[in-house]
């Protein structure tokens, strides 16, 4: 059987943001195909915050064999990060600062280990920084300034999280496309992209109103396309939108 490389990237959501709504976390567990998968949490983007670890264990203790890796307290953790990560079924990456997280990961060689894990079929998932990191280019906004950070590049697209249609961050994303940013995917809180290999297989959502989009340049104009989204809350849910361009006009790019 051929190994499937899988990434589930949340615009926002899961136990970190949707207390009481288990849908996205149930979904990532289901993608492993196992009843009780081994799940390792990477809270690096939060600086390995204790309260975040507690919330992870509360959410995943019952769902599988839960563990975590703290790169700030290696003297107390697993002797070999690589062995530990490669023995997992699911690696779950928390939110926080994507720039700080990528810096720490590279210093400890996690960029290479995570690629190996992905290629072996271990499901990778996460929200916020834990979504951005898998892409080639991470589009973030800080103090009204939008910048592009180079991610791990497993997915050859750009990504923006906590998306809001028509927001300044959306316009800035479009602006970046005009400056050479690669086409990308963006999702609101509650929506998640499920990639198989490097192609988008489906979009799932933990809330009926959650949305996901593909943003690209058509000619010299940015185009935002709403993607069909499957709401995980009802088993017979039929996607409402069939990848149709949304009736929403973008401003032309200012050079």
């Amino acid at each position: 059987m051929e190994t499937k490389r899988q990434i589930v990237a949340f615009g926002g959501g899961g136990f970190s943001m949707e207390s009481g709504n288990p849908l996205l976390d149930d979904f990532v567990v289901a993608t492993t195909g196992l009843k009780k998968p081994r799940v390792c949490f990477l809270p690096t983007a939060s600086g390995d915050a204790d309260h975040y670890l507690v919330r992870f264990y509360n959410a995943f203790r019952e769902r599988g064999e839960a563990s975590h890796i703290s790169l700030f307290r290696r003297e107390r953790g697993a002797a070999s990060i690589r062995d530990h990560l490669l023995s997992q079924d699911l690696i779950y990456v928390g939110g926080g600062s994507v720039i700080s997280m990528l810096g720490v990961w590279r210093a400890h060689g996690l960029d290479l280990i995570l690629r190996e894990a992905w290629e072996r079929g271990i499901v990778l998932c996460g929200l916020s920084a834990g979504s951005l990191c898998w892409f080639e280019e991470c589009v973030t906004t800080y103090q009204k300034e939008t910048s592009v950070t180079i991610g791990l590049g497993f997915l050859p697209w750009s990504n923006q999280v906590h998306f809001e249609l028509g927001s300044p961050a959306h316009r800035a994303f479009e602006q970046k496309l005009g400056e050479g940013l690669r086409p990308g995917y963006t999702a609101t809180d509650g929506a998640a992209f499920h990639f198989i290999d490097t192609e988008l297989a489906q979009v799932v959502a933990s809330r009926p109103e959650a949305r996901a989009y593909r943003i690209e340049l058509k000619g010299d104009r940015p185009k935002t396309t709403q993607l069909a989204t499957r709401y995980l809350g009802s088993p017979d849910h039929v996607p409402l939108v069939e990848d149709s361009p949304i009736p929403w006009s973008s401003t032309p790019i200012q050079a």
Partner: protein
Amino acid sequence: MKGRILVMGGHEFDRLDGNEAICDHIIELTGGRKPEVCLLPTASGDPSDQISRFRRSFGSRGCEVSDVSLFRLGANPIDVSAHLMRQDVIYVGGGSLVNLVAVWKPHGIAGLITDCLEQGVMVVGQSAGAMCWFEAGITSSSGRPEPALGLGMLEGSLCVHYHRDPGRREKYLSEVGRNIAPGYGADDQTGLLFEDGEMVEAFSAREGAGVWRVSAEGGRAVEKPVEVVDIRPGPGSASPGSPVDDFRALNKWRKSAGTRG
């Protein structure tokens, strides 16, 4: 490297006598009554308990305290450059040397701090926050004591928690002259003050705690004790006329007399 950097072998924000004396000493070094002191807790991931202990420790001394948490900038956006430049003291906390260097790099913090040092902001650091200024240090960032690269703003190397972590000192002595440049070994509650890249003062705030100059002679590391000023509060030792002042006066004189290399 222009400016003043105070590095410490170990310092906690607690009520331990030596640690209290060090806080007082730092404030004294700024010459200001109510200095602005900003904590950079990057090396341990910006934990809130370290931040609140820092705030209590320096806040209770009348300092204006703040912190820059690079892991939480999204939730608390500030102009990092302007904020750091305003400070009298930037205090860099301990934790993982490897992570500190790795996180600071994409945020450009070393460059910002270089500018601050040139403008007269004093930089203080303990443990990882002390070793980071040197070319190299001995860190447990990866579990066991190993050499790791610092920012190289000060020449040579530093090994912290010198006698508290026997493995660290052992590793340092085996690496100096082979894989890392000579430097200093510093116990907890000791410190070394560098001015424009030169060591001008070493102090100890705990009985028996010392500083060693570690050099390589014939391929072997050799330790020589460094003379330290005792900054423990003693009967009637309050400034002026404290050993620290004498030491500084002596150094000033040496400097002006041009006898220092």
